[in-house]
């Protein structure tokens, strides 16, 4: 192991050490210091990863700083930084105490940094499950709320089943190919039946993680129960990580025609049912949960084309979706004072009484609906372009029609924000950390909508 190798896996080391430091020294330090350390280290890890050249050779057995990792680690770090900024004020308001909160966020981030670096199935599995494990804890962090406990339990039970499926699938692939190495195991042409079966089971497991219909039922409850900043982190980074895992598996494997049908059905159902169910929601977090189900359906649509354009679309959409959802959940977190501001009707008039937060929420809704000139439009454009180019015209049209229907429930939030009056008191002013994070997310949403070219270059570089 050379110094260069050490440098290349530095983000993993930084986040891992930071998690431990925060956990060990947390009790002795002020809350603000703890949050500060967590923000600085995760930001630092992201910056480090962005400016370190990627290497083809593994730095450690099973870990290589691939171009994909170079793209994804900064994204995860950014998401963690914003989550931590949202969390600080939120936790103070909600009396969520303790250093375990930032430590667990850092631990989740550590696992997210490992995931795209993995070169064998075992590391991949460990990283994926570590992420989920951290979220089991984070979801239940608000001990004062009954929904939190319920959400945690539901997530744990579902997650355990999903983990079992994934492990079983990896075991079958190993049994069929005789190696755990990512390239070797997947590309093996012998024992095709066993490997195909393994693939099928893995897809079931990942469908849980991505909350694709019909494995989506935990999502609305968990989003509703989790603290809003955690819902932001969960709905962005953990989804992107799961999508990246599927992408790594698919991109390394030779074309697998037998995977087309299951992915097609998962994508179709997720887009249609996700959007239709979201139409009926009165609770904004449940609405966003169904919306994220639909968005994962779009991602799957791009994935199943099996083309490089499709994979590029997945990465681009992952980045854009992260910015949009962080903005949405961040605004919700910032507007939730003594209790969660859950109902869409509770947002009446907020656009005028809290212009920044209301504006960011409205912007994120328009972006999620895919309306230009926001980034959401560029993302949707790339997805549907890749789908049509990959020959999935029917599914693309179904997806587009369902996306058009989705505009209705996103607009419902905007309508409440600006077009209904309320007598409720003006929300408290925004703490600077949250304002900063909200502005940052909103700027990404606008900037990427108008100048997507730099991000597209990064995406292409990540897949080289």
């Amino acid at each position, binding site marked *: 192991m050379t110094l260069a190798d050490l440098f290349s896996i530095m983000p993993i080391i930084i986040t891992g050490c930071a998690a431990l430091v925060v956990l060990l020294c947390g009790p002795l330090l002020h809350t603000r210091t703890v949050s500060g350390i967590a923000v600085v280290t995760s930001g630092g890890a992201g910056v480090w990863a962005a400016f370190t050249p990627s290497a083809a050779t593994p730095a450690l057995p099973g870990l290589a700083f691939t171009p994909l990792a170079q793209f994804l680690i900064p994204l995860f770090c950014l998401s963690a930084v914003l989550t931590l900024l949202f969390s600080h004020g939120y936790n103070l308001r909600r009396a969520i105490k303790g250093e375990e909160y930032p430590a667990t966020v850092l631990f989740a981030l550590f696992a997210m940094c490992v995931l795209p670096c993995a070169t064998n199935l075992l590391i991949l599995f460990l990283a994926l499950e570590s992420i989920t494990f951290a979220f089991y804890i984070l979801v239940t962090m608000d001990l004062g709320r009954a929904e939190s406990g319920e959400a945690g339990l539901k997530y744990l039970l579902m997650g355990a089943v999903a983990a079992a499926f994934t492990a079983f699938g990896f075991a079958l692939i190993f049994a069929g190919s005789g190696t755990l190495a990512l390239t070797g195991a997947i590309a093996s042409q012998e024992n095709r039946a066993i490997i195909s079966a393994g693939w099928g089971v893995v897809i079931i497991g990942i469908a849980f993680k991505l909350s694709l219909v019909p494995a989506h039922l935990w999502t609305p409850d968990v989003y509703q129960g989790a603290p809003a900043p955690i819902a932001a982190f969960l709905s962005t980074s953990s989804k992107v990580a799961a999508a990246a895992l599927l992408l790594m598996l698919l991109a390394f494997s030779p074309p697998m025609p037998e995977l087309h049908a299951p992915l097609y059905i998962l994508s179709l159902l997720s887009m249609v049912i996700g959007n239709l169910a979201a139409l009926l929601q009165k609770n904004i977090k449940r609405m966003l949960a169904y919306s994220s189900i639909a968005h994962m359906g779009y991602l799957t649509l791009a994935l199943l084309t099996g083309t490089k354009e499709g994979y590029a679309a997945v990465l681009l959409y992952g980045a854009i979706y992260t910015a949009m959802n962080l903005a949405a959940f961040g605004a919700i977190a910032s507007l939730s004072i003594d209790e969660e501001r859950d109902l869409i009707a509770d947002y009446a008039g907020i656009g005028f009484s809290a212009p920044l937060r209301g504006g960011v929420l409205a912007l994120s809704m328009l972006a999620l609906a895919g*309306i230009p000139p926001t980034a959401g439009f560029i993302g949707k454009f790339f997805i549907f372009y890749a789908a*049509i180019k990959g020959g999935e015209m029917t599914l693309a049209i179904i997806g587009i029609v369902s996306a058009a229907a989705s505009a209705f429930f996103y607009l419902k939030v905007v*309508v409440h924000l*600006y*077009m209904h009056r309320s007598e409720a008191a003006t929300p408290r002013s925004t703490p600077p950390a949250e304002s900063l994070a909200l502005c940052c997310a909103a700027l990404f949403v606008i900037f990427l909508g108008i100048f*997507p070219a730099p991000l597209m270059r990064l995406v292409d570089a990540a897949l080289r």
Partner: protein
Amino acid sequence: MTSDFPILTLLIFLPLCGSLLLFACRRSDQMARLVALTVSLAEMGLVAWLCLASSMDVAAGAPAGFFSFEDAAWIERFGIRYTLGMDGISLVMVLLTAFITVIAVLVSWNGIRERVPLYYALLLALQCGIQGVFLSLDLFLFYLFWEAMLIPMFFLIGIWGHGRRVYSAVKFFLYTFLGSLLMLVAIIALYLMHGAQTGSYTFSLTGLINTSVPYGVGLWLYAAFLLSFAIKFPVFPLHTWLPDAHTDAPTAGSVILASLLLKTGAYGLIRFAYPLFPEAARAFTPVLYVVAVFGISYGAWVAFAQTDMKRLVAYSSVSHMGFVALGIAAWSPVALSGALLQMVNHGVTTGALFAIVGMLDERAESREMATYGGIWGKVPVLSFFFLLFCMASAGLPGLNNFIGEFLVLVGTFKVAPMAALGAFLGIVLTLVYTVRLVQEVLFGKENKPLSLKDLSLREAGVLAVMALAAVYLGVHPGPVLELFRAPIELLTK
């Protein structure tokens, strides 16, 4: 234009800069009004200067017919370019947009009292979107502006509207959004076909025109474009969003909606749908004839049944836009120039009618015809303008609509006499509802003792300028038609 100065970019983004400035000055309402007026007048001046100064020679590197052209790389990965071009058609539309925006700023001067800076910011942002639509020559860029127009209009109706404003705003948004998403699919499909054939992936109109589209596929793609534009148009039976949106929008919203947004649909059809899919467009022509002729009569018929003046004018829009659709369907030089002229005419007359209804509404807080009656003696100046624009709308010779409708009918008669005949019958119906409107509101007997004030100087000025435009277009349409001539020759050859 031969200079390198990016005048078209300035045309599009000057209003947006004004809009951002207004977001910043949220304290003083009067200040916001003045800023908005200054920006819209500056835009107007810019267009006027462009009209007078441009040599009408084809710009260097521009496609035929375009005398002002800008092109820059934007998203290289997809071959998306920032391409703007201005030919005679665009110039007239841009001029109309700049003109109507000034009017819209002025008519909302006293009517809008809440959140004034935000209101004007959205108005100017809307102008940015509309100018973008009229100037884009890259389909991706066009689509971007096309959809971006929706957001400010949605807020204008939803926040400052009347009645069922939220319902109307959402309906307006969803209708247009659904139609345009299908157009996006068609654009992507066309882009991929062109790329596969030539190896160069581009969204530029001039490139995509040369794609050889198989007939069957072309029909589907054209249908997607047509759907999107026909919703905006609006062509019967896709018009149902229009009466709601017009009625519930604030006055300036209705003016912009009628005068400009409807024109973007017709413009899209002429600029993009027909040139891209000529064969499919020809195949769809009978359909367009039928909906156009039916729309003319249907709009007039329903307008006759209205008691709300704004709704009446809204349905009259459906009727008038039927003439535009008819002229486009005929696709002969005469009919097409009639259709384009009719777009401008309708923008002026219907915009003015909406403004007058808004002024009456501000005075008596009612848009019901039954409230008024016999106001001719009480408010002579307002009544004069009301009568003038009603007559223009009914197609009185000497006023603007007459020329447009006449050209459309003449042009259509040569290719489709039956359609022209049907449209002619529609004109008779137009007369019926106009006469009723004039009779019940201006003359007739006084239904309620109203004490109305006559027009203020600002209002009279607004209407006088529009009246001048109506008379000018009615007696001397030559210069405008001359601007249309060269692009139409290129389009119909």
